[in-house]
């Protein structure tokens, strides 16, 4: 390994096959207590029509083999617990361990969603407290905690807009979405029954207000805007945008994916936002878990409150209950109250900071600007607007050597870092989207800066080294085209394959 690489060293990594390849008849990893009632005659009770012979191909392995198998697999992953994870737009921050402890407490993890509400006051108080905190942080007026993730929050938000507009006589037809938006925005608008109209960004990467005015018609239901945008810059004319929309009877939806730049500093409720969602697995530190779970609470202004999904949490005489009698509600978006365990963790995070959450925001913005300053002489900065919590470079300078953003990202792996977000937002060709979050120390930021500068040098001096990276991983770049062309999506035993 090159002595330029300071953060990582090569390490022996255990090989491990599929769990199915370790199976042998008669082994088991879990035993049940003895049955304390008469055994049932399954054939008689279920009948031939319903009785299953066996669950073919299920593994038979011991407890320790299972533990070792998944421990070995775990060592093949990068993780925020190992180091900086600068994925732009993903807010990979420290996931406090005490939150894991709390979510597993007896009396919290053990509770059933249908137990009597008088025996659920603790759970309901957790939901009520989190709601209060999120309303204060966002400046909004009512909320639902039910959506399971950001995209479901978006769907909920658009259905609220549709229901509100329909109640006023016309649900309208179109949702406007900037070209810099996350893919979930347009995908969601379609499920909510809207046509998508893309609106372009101006030369600064911000909403083109003139273009917006020209695009607005009586058919426009809403504008979905991410603020700060996916370029990591604040939309300075956001309040004006809200006024323009409202004057046309349309609403402003804010994608709160980038709330980590604002918490404690500015509140979307004050910008004229009508509906927004938060990603608790981003700003509020709940673990990403390799892709989920998340939680995507939706916060609204008063005029949208009657349409919130059921159930709605209400308080009467000091007792909390879940109200189902909401005649104007859009209905239910998920069974039960939502990803409760995620909501518990998010509340624990918020209570750990209290009003000091502002310090986290400041540190996140400080880190992003520090990295920007230290890299802007070697990487191209396509938009010069001030950065907040993330910075977006492009690979324009490295392209001259045949090196693109994905190559740089893969080389970063050899340097001991997870890559940044590549090739997004779409308005930046060859984007390098870097979000350090507040969780990185100055030392970790400096190591990252060193690595990025070193890769920029390599791109010029030894482009092949970068283009064939990573070199230090268990597997090299995988044949993704082949994987899609001839999908192998499950293991099959040798005899049948």
């Amino acid at each position, binding site marked *: 390994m090159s002595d330029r690489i300071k953060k990582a060293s090569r390490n022996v990594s255990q090989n491990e096959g*599929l769990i*199915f390849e370790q199976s042998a008849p008669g082994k088991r*990893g*879990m*035993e049940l207590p003895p049955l304390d009632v008469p055994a049932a005659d*399954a054939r008689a009770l279920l009948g031939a029509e319903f009785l299953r012979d066996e*669950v073919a191909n*299920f593994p038979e392995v011991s407890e320790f083999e*299972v533990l070792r198998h998944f421990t070995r697999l*775990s060592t093949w*992953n990068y993780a925020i*617990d190992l180091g900086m994870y600068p994925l732009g737009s993903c807010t990979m921050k420290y*996931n406090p361990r*005490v939150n894991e402890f709390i979510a597993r407490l007896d009396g919290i993890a*053990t*509770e*059933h*969603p*249908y137990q009597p509400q008088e025996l*659920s006051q603790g759970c309901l108080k957790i939901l009520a407290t989190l709601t209060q905190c999120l309303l204060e*942080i966002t400046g909004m007026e009512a909320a639902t905690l039910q959506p399971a993730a950001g995209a479901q929050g*978006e769907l909920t938000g658009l259905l609220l807009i*549709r229901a509100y507009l329909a109640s006023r006589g016309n649900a309208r037809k179109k949702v406007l979405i900037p070209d810099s938006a*996350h*893919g*979930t925005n*347009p*995908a969601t608008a379609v499920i909510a029954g809207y046509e998508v109209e893309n609106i372009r960004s101006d030369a600064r990467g911000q909403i083109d207000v003139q273009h917006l005015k020209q695009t607005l018609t009586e058919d426009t239901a809403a504008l979905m805007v991410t603020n700060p945008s996916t370029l990591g810059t604040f939309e300075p004319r956001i*309040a004006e945008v809200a006024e323009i929309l409202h004057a046309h009877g349309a609403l402003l939806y804010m994608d709160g994916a980038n709330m980590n730049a604002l918490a*404690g*500093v500015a509140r979307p409720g004050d*910008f004229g936002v009508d509906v927004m969602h938060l990603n608790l*697995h981003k700003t509020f530190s709940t673990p990403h878990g*390799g*892709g989920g779970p998340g939680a995507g609470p939706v916060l609204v202004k008063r005029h949208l409150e009657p349409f919130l999904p059921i159930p709605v949490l209400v308080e009467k005489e000091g007792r909390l209950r879940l109200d189902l009698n909401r005649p104007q509600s859009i*209905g239910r978006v*998920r*069974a039960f109250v939502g*990803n409760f365990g995620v909501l518990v963790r998010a509340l624990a995070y*918020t209570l750990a900071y*209290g*009003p000091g959450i*502002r310090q986290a925001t400041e*540190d996140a*913005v400080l880190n992003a600007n520090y990295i920007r*300053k230290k890299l802007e002489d070697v990487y191209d900065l396509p938009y010069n607007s001030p950065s*907040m919590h993330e910075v977006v470079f492009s690979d324009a300078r490295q392209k001259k050597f045949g090196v693109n953003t994905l190559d740089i990202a893969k080389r970063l*792996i050899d340097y001991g870092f*997870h890559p940044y977000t590549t090739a997004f937002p779409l308005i930046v060709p060859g984007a390098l989207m870097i979000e350090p979050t507040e969780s990185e*120390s*100055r030392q970790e930021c400096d190591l990252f800066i060193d690595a990025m500068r070193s890769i920029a040098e390599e791109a010029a001096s030894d482009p092949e080294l970068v283009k064939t990276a990573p070199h230090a*991983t*268990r*597997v090299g770049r*995988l044949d*993704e085209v*082949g994987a899609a062309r001839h*999908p*192998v*999506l499950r293991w099959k035993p040798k005899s049948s394959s």
Partner: protein
Amino acid sequence: MRYLPKSPSERLEMLEAIGAHSIEELFSTIPEALRVKGALRLPAAMSEAELIAFFRDRAAENSQGYSSFLGAGVYNHLRSVVTDAILQRGEFLTSYTPYQAEISQGTLQAIFEFQTLMSELTGQEVANASMYDGSTATAEAVLMAERLTHKRRVLVARSLHPEYRQVLSTYGRSLGHEVIEIGYTRSGELDPDALRAALTEQTAAVVVQSPNFFGVLEPVARIAEMAHSTEALAVVAIAEGVSLGIVRPPAEADIVALETQSFGMPPSYGGPYAGVIATREKFIRQMPGRLAGQTSDAQGRRGFCLTLATREQHIRRERATSNICTNQALYALAATVHLCLLGKQGLREMAEHNLAKAQFALEELQKIPGVERVFSGRVFNEFVVRFPRAVKLVNAQLLREKIIGPLPLGSTLPELTKCGLVCVTETTSRAEIERLAGAVRKILATPL
């Protein structure tokens, strides 16, 4: 603040390196009028010890110390500490979606194993990883069926979980799909005559749950055959995965929407769990959600990567099969570890215990004068009984005995007034069942 790794002087040095005079300068693009003045009105910051105390206080306001007979889509099953030990490995817990395959092989291989387990379990050819839960998996399965058939009318069993039905209607409403409800017979199974009468060339899908909301097993093969007679698809929702250890899988279904909560996930007041969509290979291009596939690198080493992403929102945007992005990956891992531990024999035994205990509970309750079994259909670990008085009245008295009784059905299904849904799993002891039966007998023996 203990989570923040910077000293005050480091912050100043970094500001200086940036060339900013103050932290406020970095926020100068936010118009002054839109900035928060002063501190937010949030509770004061808590230390770790205070946080734990706060949540222990909340836990004490819940239902600790009660025995419960609630199921209805959320089940108490045995879990191994090994599952949770794996879940708390930081490399799984604190990693992102495995887009960068070279440093995500652990998550990717685990997903591949999950897909294999789910395919075997459901009797389907492929399974995704994952959906939010069983209810949204069911709704997405229906949207998928509508895309596959280019039709918009769905026939939905009244015996589908009421909350699943509500979610389905929320998801479909703005897309203009038409839901027609199909009732049930005295067995508790889907009414075949009503289904036959409602099926037309316009039908996209028939949606049933098995075991259904009443715990009754549906004749999936016969229902699928009827659906196929008009080229509709059969969508089967499964909320209780443990049933598949002993009940024939819905191999004849076209799309299966499975809730995996029963595999290693605590009830946690409604989530997080993980849903799955399993289907036929020929339908995968219309399947929502992530998929991991096996492939190799340039040196021929086996590896795994996310695949068929051209179905997904980050590539296809408004033409994606779904808007789902973040899913329930960590809990799909929980199901994977749990099912590997249980293995072939353990899953069978767990299912047998559920069957035996539910049968025992059913017999014990039926011995009580005035308590009767409502549906004659075959059940797994849940069943409906009718009491001679309102279930809520019975339950109020059971609570005094520290028992959370059957789920009253009358408020959501008015035809089932005085009926309650009883769930018994391998975690329910014989003594608890006898205590329930004894308490119900005593309550009913006392006139109102």
